[in-house]
């Protein structure tokens, strides 16, 4: 039997931690670390409960029940996303614990980081658990605004400019989403996902809501061609923040889109899945090509995120109108890639943070024997790169393989070729970095003083990268976790 209060604890704990970190600034990093450990323990017991008694769980906040109050919903998919959020969050917290105490960082910034990050974490967990459209709007704003504030925290000119662009984009996305919710509410008199999924019909207002909500969430999840805001923001934020933004924040809106798609919009769509698939394919090619052209490491990783996000969207056409087995396979592939990408990309950004701290810059051409001087960090980057490229054995490979299988079985050769080409291009940009890391600096720059990197920061990056590899070795239990509660064939409950 599952303890129902565990879910909401995953929201309440970070929220409390954020308040404490704001109050007791001096010890904010200890509060943050303690919260991260507590959240991880709660998640572990939640997952054990869910695996031992699989099912679809609802939790009525305040005991009011669906149309009046707010309900939380826990199934395999939300547990899977919570796992992504908590494991990445724990890693980044451990990293940030050291990162924000390195001399040039001041105490005020560290305290602000911890409260903002814990608010962000509460928002993410709340989003993954919520089954109420308006509550999801509030969580989206909590996530969006804390992500913007975290980006601006870096304080540089570039960071501030990308933060305000991020803010405007994020607000535009939430407003589109909210307008869609308004139309749905006034058509069906409820914002509860489960009730709505039983009532939804193809009406003009529903079609408009579908378009608005999809557009808003695409903007927030930076699908090509709406990705313009992502690379500068992810490229200029502080390293732990970039890791969180790339690993979790963009995925939250993808998750929400997928969830709404599965539960609400599935019966009323028309052209949409193919459109999303084409944009996804374009994102893979365009993002990878731009990543290849970058001269700064963090921007390269950011463009790689644009490309990798494209893969997730391939699931919409590949899972459309398919047999149950095929449909579940494609969705499992997309979400498995998402999980592997969360770990690999956070490892990459943390490694890039180490390199940037070590040499004072992140210009790839000026890397000077990084491999020999920061072996652990480079190992982390390379292992994460293996998962991003999708080489076996890695989580990235498993996910990509499932998507490829679906594409080949449906004889959609275009998508299959794109999936393979994306891997080749990823190999191109990953090896470009690794190559320069082994050699002497190409452009003669005045040798800047190097700084020692705390061991913790190197090991955390390596650990996250290793997890993304290990995901490829034992995929079965996690793929099974995803299907608990039957989130993917919502409309075929009999099968």
């Amino acid at each position, binding site marked *: 039997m599952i303890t129902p209060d565990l879910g909401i604890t995953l929201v309440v704990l970070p929220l409390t931690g954020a308040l404490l970190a704001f109050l007791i600034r001096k010890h904010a990093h200890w509060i943050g670390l303690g919260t991260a450990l507590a959240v991880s323990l709660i998640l572990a017991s939640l997952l054990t409960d869910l695996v031992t008694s699989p099912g679809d769980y609802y939790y009525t906040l305040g005991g009011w029940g669906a149309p009046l109050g707010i309900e939380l919903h826990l199934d395999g998919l939300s547990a899977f996303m919570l796992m992504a959020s908590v494991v990445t969050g724990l890693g980044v917290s451990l990293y940030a614990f050291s990162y924000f105490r390195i001399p040039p960082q001041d105490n005020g910034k560290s305290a602000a980081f911890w409260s903002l990050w814990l608010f962000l974490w509460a928002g993410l967990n709340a989003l993954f658990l919520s089954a109420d459209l308006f509550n999801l709007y509030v969580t989206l704003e909590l996530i969006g605004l804390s992500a913007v504030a975290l980006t601006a925290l870096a304080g540089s*000119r570039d960071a501030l*400019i990308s933060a305000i662009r991020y803010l405007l984009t994020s607000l535009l996305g939430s407003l589109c989403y909210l307008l869609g919710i308004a139309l749905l509410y006034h058509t069906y008199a409820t914002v509860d996902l489960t009730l709505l999924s039983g009532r939804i019909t193809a009406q003009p207002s529903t079609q408009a809501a579908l378009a608005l909500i999809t557009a808003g969430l695409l903007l927030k999840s930076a699908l090509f061609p709406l990705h313009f805001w992502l690379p500068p923001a992810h490229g200029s934020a502080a390293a732990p923040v970039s890791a969180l933004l790339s690993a979790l924040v963009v995925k939250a809106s993808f998750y929400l889109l997928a969830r709404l798609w599965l539960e609400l919009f599935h019966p009323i769509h028309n052209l949409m899945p193919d459109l999303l698939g084409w944009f996804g394919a374009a994102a893979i090619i365009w993002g990878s090509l731009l990543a290849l052209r970058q001269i700064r490491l963090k921007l390269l990783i950011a463009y790689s995120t644009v490309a990798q996000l494209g893969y997730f969207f391939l699931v919409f056409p590949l899972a459309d109108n398919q047999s149950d087995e095929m449909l579940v396979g494609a969705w499992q592939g997309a979400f498995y890639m998402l999980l592997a990408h969360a770990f690999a990309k956070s490892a990459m950004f943390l490694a890039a943070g180490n390199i940037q701290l070590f040499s004072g810059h992140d210009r790839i051409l000026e890397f000077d024997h990084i491999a020999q001087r920061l072996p652990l960090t480079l190992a982390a980057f390379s292992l994460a790169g293996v998962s991003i490229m999708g080489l076996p054995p890695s989580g990235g490979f498993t996910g990509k393989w499932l998507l490829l299988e679906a594409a080949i079985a449906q004889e959609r050769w275009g998508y299959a070729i794109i999936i393979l080409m994306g891997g080749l291009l990823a190999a191109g940009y990953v090896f470009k970095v690794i190559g320069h890391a082994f050699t002497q600096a190409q452009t003669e720059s005045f040798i800047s003083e190097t700084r020692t990197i705390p061991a913790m920061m190197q090991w955390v990056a390596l650990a996250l990268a290793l997890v993304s590899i290990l995901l490829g070795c034992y995929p079965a239990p996690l793929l099974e976790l995803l299907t608990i509660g039957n989130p993917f064939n919502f409309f075929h409950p009999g099968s």
Partner: protein
Amino acid sequence: MTIAILYASTGIGLFSLGLYALIVLTHLLRKLLAINVMSCGVFLVLAGLAAHTPNAIVDPIPHAMVITGIVVAIAATALGLSILLRIHALTGRVHLPGVDEQFDD
């Protein structure tokens, strides 16, 4: 046409107007104003339609949602303004550079 539909249409109009201004204007403070006009439009749709019921009974739930939305909007505006002021203090500029435009002029 009922009152509810009239004001909801006004809300749509404000949303579209704000959207246009958000794309076209370059001054950051004006962009924030545009976002605010857009959110007022959304609120008009959300709560304006609250009386779009049999016998025009007013539904309190959208009203509560709009109050939540107003507080979120001022929080976002305040954060945006403070970033804007920092940008102004650092660079003397208040316009968003184009995506392809280099910022070091």
